C-alpha cells in the first residue's frame, strides 16, 4: 500500500509539472527530471503497472517539452545578436510597422447583439409605444465591455425622409435577398439601422417578402403606395404650414386687440 501511495504522489508531481509546462515551458529548463525516473524504477511492481505506465507516459511528455524548450532557448541565444543587429540597423517606421501589421489580429466580439444593445432597442421600440410595461434588466446582464449604439425614433421627419431615400435607392436591385440589399452596410450599427428600415417598409406595404424564395420585392401596388406616401407627406407639410399661418393670424389679431402691447414690442 505504501508503494501505491508513493506512486500516486509521483503522479501528482507529474501533473503539477504538466500544468507549469502549459503556462510556460521555459520553467522546465531549470527542472531536474532524472530523480522522477529513478524513483519510478525503484517503485515498480507488477500490481501497479497501470499507474506506473501512466507516470512514465507523463514523464516522457514532460521530458519532450523540456528538450523543446532547451532547443528554443539555444536558438534564441544564437539569434539574439542577429535580431539586435536587425533592430539597430533598421529604424524605418514603415518597415517595422508592416511587420507588426502582418500578424496583428483582433478578438472577435459581437457587441451589436449584446444584452445592452438589445435592452436599449427594447426600450426604444416597445416602451416608447407604451404597449408594454417596463422591464428592469438584472444588473449582471450588462457587461462593461459592451458598447451601446444610439437608437433612433421612426416618428421624426428626418428618419422618414431617410427611409424614403433608402427605398428609392433599393428599387433598382429588387427583387433580391436581404444580404444583397444590405451589402453596402457592413458597419453593425448601419446594418441594423437599414435592416429596421426594411422592416418598416415591409410593414407599411412598400416591400413584399416571400418566405419560400427569401426574396424581397416591390409590392404589386407600388405606384399607389408611393403616391399615398407622397400625398401623406404633402398633407402633413400643408397641415404644418396651416397651423403656422393660423398661429401668426391669431397673434396679429391679439396684437390688434391690444395695440399698447404691439407698440411696446416695436419699441424694443
Amino acid at each position: 500500500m505504501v508503494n501505491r501511495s508513493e506512486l500516486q504522489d509521483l503522479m501528482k508531481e507529474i501533473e503539477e509539472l504538466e500544468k507549469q509546462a502549459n503556462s510556460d515551458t521555459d520553467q522546465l529548463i531549470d527542472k531536474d527530471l532524472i530523480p522522477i525516473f529513478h524513483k519510478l524504477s525503484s517503485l515498480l511492481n507488477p500490481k501497479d503497472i497501470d499507474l506506473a505506465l501512466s507516470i512514465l507516459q507523463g514523464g516522457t511528455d514532460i521530458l519532450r517539452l523540456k528538450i523543446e524548450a532547451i532547443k528554443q532557448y539555444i536558438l534564441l541565444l544564437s539569434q539574439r545578436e542577429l535580431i539586435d543587429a536587425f533592430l539597430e540597423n533598421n529604424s524605418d517606421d514603415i518597415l517595422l510597422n508592416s511587420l507588426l501589421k502582418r500578424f496583428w489580429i483582433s478578438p472577435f466580439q459581437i457587441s451589436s447583439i449584446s444584452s445592452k444593445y438589445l435592452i436599449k432597442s427594447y426600450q426604444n421600440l416597445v416602451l416608447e409605444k407604451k404597449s408594454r410595461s417596463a422591464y428592469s434588466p438584472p444588473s449582471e446582464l450588462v457587461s462593461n465591455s459592451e458598447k451601446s449604439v444610439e437608437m433612433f425614433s421612426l416618428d421624426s421627419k428626418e428618419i422618414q425622409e431617410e427611409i424614403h431615400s433608402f427605398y428609392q435607392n433599393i428599387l433598382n436591385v429588387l427583387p433580391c435577398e436581404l444580404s444583397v440589399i444590405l451589402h453596402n452596410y457592413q458597419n453593425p450599427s448601419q446594418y441594423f439601422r437599414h435592416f429596421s428600415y426594411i422592416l418598416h417598409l415591409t410593414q407599411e406595404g412598400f416591400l413584399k417578402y416571400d418566405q419560400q424564395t427569401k426574396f424581397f420585392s416591390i409590392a404589386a401596388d407600388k405606384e399607389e403606395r408611393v403616391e399615398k406616401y407622397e400625398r401623406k407627406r404633402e398633407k402633413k407639410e400643408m397641415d404644418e404650414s396651416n397651423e403656422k399661418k393660423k398661429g401668426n393670424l391669431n397673434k396679429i389679431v391679439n396684437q390688434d386687440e391690444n395695440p399698447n402691447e404691439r407698440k411696446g414690442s416695436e419699441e424694443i
Partner: protein
Amino acid sequence: MNEFCLLTHLLSDTQIINSDISDNIISIGCTEDQLIKSLGLSGKYAKIQLIQLLNSYAQAIRVFGLRVQKNQLNQRWFLAKSPEILESIGSNPFQNKPRLGATLMVIITSIMISKSPVDKARILEIRKKQSIEEDLKALAKMNFIIISKSKISLHPNLGYYLDFSNFFSAVEHLSLKSDNQKSSSS
C-alpha cells in the same frame, strides 16, 4: 446545440478582470482544460479530440475571415479576426500610425529576446528618435504595454492582438536574411 455552437460561445466569452497590474485586463476564451470540461470530453485521448475539433471548427469559420488562436501570454484559446480582414476594413490601430507601430514592434521584440522587462533608454537607443515618451503614453493608453518607472513590460491584453509565434518567426527570418545580405556584400 452542437459542438460548434458551444465552441463559438466558449471561444468568444469575455470577462473583465480587476487586477493590481491594470484596470482593464480582459479574459477572452478558455484554456484547454476548460474547453475539455465544457465539451464533455474525457479519457486519455480528450486532448487529441479537442485539437481535432478545434481544427475542423477553424476550417469551418475560415470563410468568415475568422481563426482560432491561442493567446501565448495566458494560454487561452479564442476567436480572432484575421490580419487580412483588419487590413481591408481599416481597423488596425496602426493603419496610419507607422511610428507608433514601429515603437511597439521594437518593444515586443526586445522583451521577447531578453525575456524580461526592457529599459526605456534601450528602446530610445534602438528607435533613434529624440523622444519616445508620447509613443509610450499612447501605447500604455491602448493597453498594449505597462510602464513602471523606467521599465516597460507587455500588457496581458496584447496576447489577444498579436500572433506571437508567427510574428517572432518572421522577425528571426528577416534578421537572418538581413545578416546574410550584409555578409555577402562585404
